[in-house]
């Protein structure tokens, strides 16, 4: 087992299959992280802007291009396709060649993918703001953009799968299981969710497919990417192997079997046939058990290393994110029951839940990856550790406030609706909760600014800092042509 952890640390440049080649394309890696952080900035502003509308403070009322409904779709789509996807591609550029010992298909193709994907995201934002949205949740990208997305995803898959297929490593590490599965699932999910309900399947049958799409995009694209990066970066940072290979197997195959079955739980008590609803509830609860095994695996991996949370901020992001993940999945196992759905469905409870997942878990893990990789990619130390700490605490506090707040007013809304009092009462009682959600939005925006400023200042620093906690921590050779000659 120790061999696995040490074999994760490969030199950046290596001769594979007898060839002298650049293994890791750090330029693409850096570009994707810059794009990801830029998009999340715009996405956070869009989300914050949207939170104003609930306080009747929306600053652009009457401006068609900035209508709140459209801004909301920009917020969710930028998070999924602008931020998470860019960050995952950048992260995979770092991780996959290291694990396989093989570069991706083509570094030039990687640059093309970078340009193409961010053009697609920009086109999606343009389409949403000009009123060309498609009525698929998480897939509101205009229908004409969907074709481009499919092509883009196919290019990404080919580029990375090449590296995995050509690998001569004897063992395929856990991270690659998750990535491989996600490479199959993501195009299938996207095509199923965006094409079938739009063109072939109307109404209730289409709703079943859209339910699958909403959940599969999180469960079969974002989650495997997230766990893949956790299985890579946590052992690398702690310099310890994963506790149990067997538990990793249970976690992966459990997720692969149960997660695709979950989708219909987004439309419980709807006209979708009840057998599908019951099946979705049961498999959702099963996922919670699977998730618990994975979390236990990581907790045992961290034995004796918890003290490192004090000085390694990246590890903090990973562990706080994992805690949020466990809370999310535990909550999911209860809230998916038909009994609880009577009260909390359609309320802000669900909004809090989704923020805890997409922000509290996966955005935190990506923040940890950026925290860990940015000094290595730029060759310069972080400009300010204090700003990184502010970033960490503002985002942690922000998501905690948002989650607690939305969960409480979600229950209040559900019970007020059940009491059959006038609809406006649920609005009036929610106002205080919506106010605190706006506060949490400000916290997240300020935390983002800490990150952005810190990344920028580190990037522009003339020379490496040598007297900080990071000095000597990453003794890796320089990348690119200089490294290839060495």
């Amino acid at each position, binding site marked *: 087992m120790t061999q696995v952890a040490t074999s994760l640390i490969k030199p950046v440049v290596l001769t594979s299959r007898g060839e002298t080649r650049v293994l890791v394309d750090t330029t693409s890696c850096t570009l994707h992280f810059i794009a990801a952080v830029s998009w999340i900035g715009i996405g956070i502003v869009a989300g914050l802007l949207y939170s104003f509308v609930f306080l009747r403070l929306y600053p652009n009322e009457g401006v068609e291009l900035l209508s709140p409904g459209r801004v909301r779709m920009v917020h969710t789509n930028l998070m999924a396709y602008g931020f998470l996807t860019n960050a995952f591609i950048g992260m995979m550029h770092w991780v996959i060649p290291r694990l396989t010992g093989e570069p991706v298909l083509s570094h030039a193709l990687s640059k093309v993918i970078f340009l193409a994907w961010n053009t697609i995201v920009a086109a999606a934002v343009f389409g949403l703001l000009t009123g060309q949205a498609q009525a698929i949740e998480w897939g509101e990208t205009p229908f004409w953009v969907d074709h481009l997305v499919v092509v883009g995803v196919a290019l990404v898959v080919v580029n990375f799968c090449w590296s*995995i297929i050509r690998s001569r490593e004897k063992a395929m590490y856990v991270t690659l299981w998750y990535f491989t599965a996600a490479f199959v699932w993501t195009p299938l999910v996207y095509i199923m969710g965006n094409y079938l309900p739009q063109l072939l399947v109307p*109404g209730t049958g289409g709703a*079943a497919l859209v339910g699958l799409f909403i959940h599969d995009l999180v469960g079969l694209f974002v989650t495997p990417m997230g766990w893949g990066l956790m299985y890579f970066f946590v052992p690398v940072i702690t310099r310890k192997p994963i506790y149990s290979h067997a538990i990793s197997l249970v976690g992966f195959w459990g997720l692969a079997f149960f997660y695709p079955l979950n989708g219909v739980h987004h439309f419980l008590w709807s*006209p979708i046939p009840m057998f599908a609803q019951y099946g979705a509830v049961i498999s959702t609860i099963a996922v919670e058990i699977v998730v618990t095994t994975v979390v236990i695996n990581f907790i045992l991996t961290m034995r004796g290393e918890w003290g490192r949370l004090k000085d390694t901020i990246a590890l903090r992001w990973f562990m706080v994110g994992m805690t949020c993940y466990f809370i999310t999945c535990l909550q999911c196992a209860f809230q998916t029951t038909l009994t609880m759905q009577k009260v909390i469905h*359609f309320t802000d409870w669900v*909004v809090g839940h989704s923020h805890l997942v997409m922000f509290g878990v996966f955005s935190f893990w990506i923040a940890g990856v950026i925290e860990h990789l940015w000094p290595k990619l730029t060759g310069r130390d972080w400009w300010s550790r204090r700003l990184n700490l502010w970033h960490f605490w503002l985002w942690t506090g922000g998501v905690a406030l948002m989650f607690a707040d939305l969960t409480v007013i979600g229950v209040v809304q559900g019970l007020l609706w059940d009491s059959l009092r006038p609809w406006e009462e649920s609005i009036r009682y929610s106002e205080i909760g919506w106010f605190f959600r706006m506060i949490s939005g400000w916290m997240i925006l300020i935390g983002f600014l800490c990150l952005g400023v810190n990344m920028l200042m580190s990037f522009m620093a003339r020379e490496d800092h040598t007297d900080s906690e990071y000095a000597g921590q990453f003794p890796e050779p320089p990348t690119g042509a200089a490294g290839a000659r060495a």
Partner: protein
Amino acid sequence: MERFNFIFVVAGVMFFTLAFVIMGALPIAQYQGIDVVSMDQLATNIPYQFEELARDYPEAFEKAFGTREPTAEAFKDAIEVGRQAYIAEACWHCHTQQIRRIDPNDGTEVGHDISRWAPDTRLESQADEYHNAMNYPHLFGTRRVGPDLIRSSGRHSNDWHLAHLWNPRHTSPYSVMPPYTWFFDDTEGKTPNRKGLGMVAYLQWLGSWHTQFAPTRFENLPRLPFDEAWYPPYVPEEAPAEGEADPYGSEEEDPY
């Protein structure tokens, strides 16, 4: 179990296909063999509110739909425009179109949907309500900031809807809905444009099959199977005889 091909084929393709078959293809298969209701069929039942629109806003109506008469062609055009605007403005992110099968008066402890959104018919959403050309894709929605809209036909007048779209606080003081001033041609909210008229036509069409056309409903909409019907299919207590059905209903029958 840790080989690329095994993961690719079993976890990737097979497990996904299994879930797609159970959770997607089987529900869809229940509706196979039943024709999707076309726009032409939908246009055989034009809600009276659409005729009111043509009567009350003749110039705007002509400018929007090319005719002053509430024809079937104009109606098809209008509800399609309304649906497009409903999607473009993401109305469906704050308004659901789905009445769930829960209600305290029907045996479950909590829940409100039927008493609140279908007080007259006491009927939850049925699969056949969505089996038509206006549901590519469906607009169930997952968040309910504002009221459910699947039975919104007749709940308010056309003028109420237009005033509400111009500034929601004019009609609902506590509303958090943003104003949609670009649904109007002038700066006073008196002349709805194509989008505004289409939106009102669409909102007045949603659920009109229950409130206005119950006697003729079964001729135009197919009955879809659902495996656990909690209520018998809706049959009006005193269905008028064939040929005598007044498509607009009388004053007494109007639940509103």
